């Protein structure tokens, strides 16, 4: 049984339909990518899942319906979104950012243990724990955003363009972390414009084009698909 099941998801902004009724699934512990060009509706899909935008359709997560829940209630059920542009709290310290990631959790001892685990995973954040998050570099901010999302102990992590605007070396590092998180059994839905990267990291993928899913399958197969190669991989 899949962890996340989406049926007929539509997102519209006023009269403009950004997502036109898509179906997809993410299994327990699976790493799935959603690729497509700029404006294909990938970010809108994630925002729809989190209840941040007006949307319709059926979203089931771990057996319960998410439709019509407020964003904070969806987050409390184990969905964590790392938004495009990271959305870190620049005027809070690194430690406070991580702490607020665990906002919905009450067991302080476990939260403390997770905090130490995150510092172990991201030594750079440990060095800067009492620094304001706004002073971090772009790559460090991306790490912080991911670590913060992990502090909620999500069952499904939604990543929106984690490589955006980062130097190649940092991108490599971030994707290593994505793989690490996935290997801990956390399901991940990865949205990327960089199709090459996304298809190499994930197990399965969906291709979005102007609001619809036009192709899906194992990432390996998608990477070898002539259409995908021509449109997204530049081969």
């Amino acid at each position, binding site marked *: 049984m899949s962890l996340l099941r989406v049926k007929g998801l539509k997102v519209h902004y006023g009269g403009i339909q950004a997502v036109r009724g898509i179906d997809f699934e993410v299994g327990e512990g699976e790493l799935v990518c959603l690729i497509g060009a700029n404006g294909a509706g990938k970010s809108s899909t994630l925002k729809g899942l989190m209840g941040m935008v007006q949307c319709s359709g059926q979203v089931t997560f771990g057996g319960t319906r998410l439709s019509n829940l407020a964003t904070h209630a969806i987050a409390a059920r184990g969905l964590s*979104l790392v938004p495009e542009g990271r959305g870190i709290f620049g005027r809070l310290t690194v430690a406070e950012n991580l702490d*607020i990631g665990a906002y919905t959790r009450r067991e302080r001892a476990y939260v403390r243990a997770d905090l130490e685990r995150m510092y172990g995973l991201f030594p750079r954040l440990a060095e800067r724990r009492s620094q304001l998050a706004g002073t971090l570099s772009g790559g460090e901010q991306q790490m912080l955003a991911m670590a913060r999302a992990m502090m909620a102990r999500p069952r499904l992590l939604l990543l929106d363009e984690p490589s955006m605007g980062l130097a190649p070396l940092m991108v490599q590092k971030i994707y290593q972390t994505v793989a690490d998180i996935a290997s801990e059994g956390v399901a991940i839905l990865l949205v990327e414009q960089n199709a090459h990267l996304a298809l190499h990291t994930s197990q399965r993928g969906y291709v979005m084009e102007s609001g619809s899913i036009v192709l899906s399958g194992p990432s390996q197969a998608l990477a070898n698909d002539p259409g995908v190669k021509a449109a997204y991989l530049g081969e």
Partner: protein
Amino acid sequence: MDIFVQQLINGLVLGSIYALVALGYTMVYGILELINFAHGEVTMIGAMVALAVIGALLGANPDLPGLLVVVAGVLVAVPACMVLGFVIEKVAYRPLRKAPRLAPLITAIGVSIVLQNAAMLIWGRGYVSFPAILPRGRHEILGATVTDLQIAIVALSVLVMVGLVLLVERTRLGRAMRATAQSREVAELMGVNVDTVISATFVIGSALAAIAGVMVSAYYGLAHYYMGFLLGLKAFSAAVLGGIGNIMGAVVGGMLLGIIEALGAGYIGDLTGGFLGSNYQDVFAFLVLILVLVFRPSGLLGERVANRA
């Protein structure tokens, strides 16, 4: 020299009251980018409710210890104002959360008018006097006089402000408030119920306003249905002076404004050769507001208001 010290002390007392009210403006602005112009009226309601309780208690038994009676008044006024703040947000601002910025400003003024008139209907058009039941000790410091009441006002203000800073800096709610102030959207993603945080902000601000209302009516010995208007405007000026949205700014701005006003009132006669008297005291707050808006719109400790407005 002694007039300088005396006015400095008077200013400090006034300033700590302004600071308490300014905190309410600044906290709401920090989170919603909204000027809650009904906040001054909450202060007035606090004073009126406390005076009603004090009057009732003294009416029942005139021999009750004065301090106890006033404390009882505060203990009723604070929760009453907390409820009022909660309701104001829910009725006047929440439905307009996504409306253009002018709309909640208009409802704010509407709420002000409603509260003023409600107070006038309940407590009348005249001044309600604060009975002289508090200890009235006087002390000499550097040639100036300080009363027990003045000491109590400053001490209680400082205590309340320290409590607020601890709440904002150290607690889970405070962290959620600061996160919400930076990005409502991302705070929601962290599981923060932003509506609850906004309600809490109004409730806390209103509690401070109630305390300030009792202080100001005790200090001047009276309350009036219209008193919230000027007090609110001055506290708003204080919040702008310190940098609106900034908690330390409201404290600094409030204290400074009180001192500027008191010194201004003390020396305006000498400076203008007797042409203007200390009844021009109220001019200084608005002079400060205009100067700040012209020369340093972000305020003394301000954040960049321009890109948030």
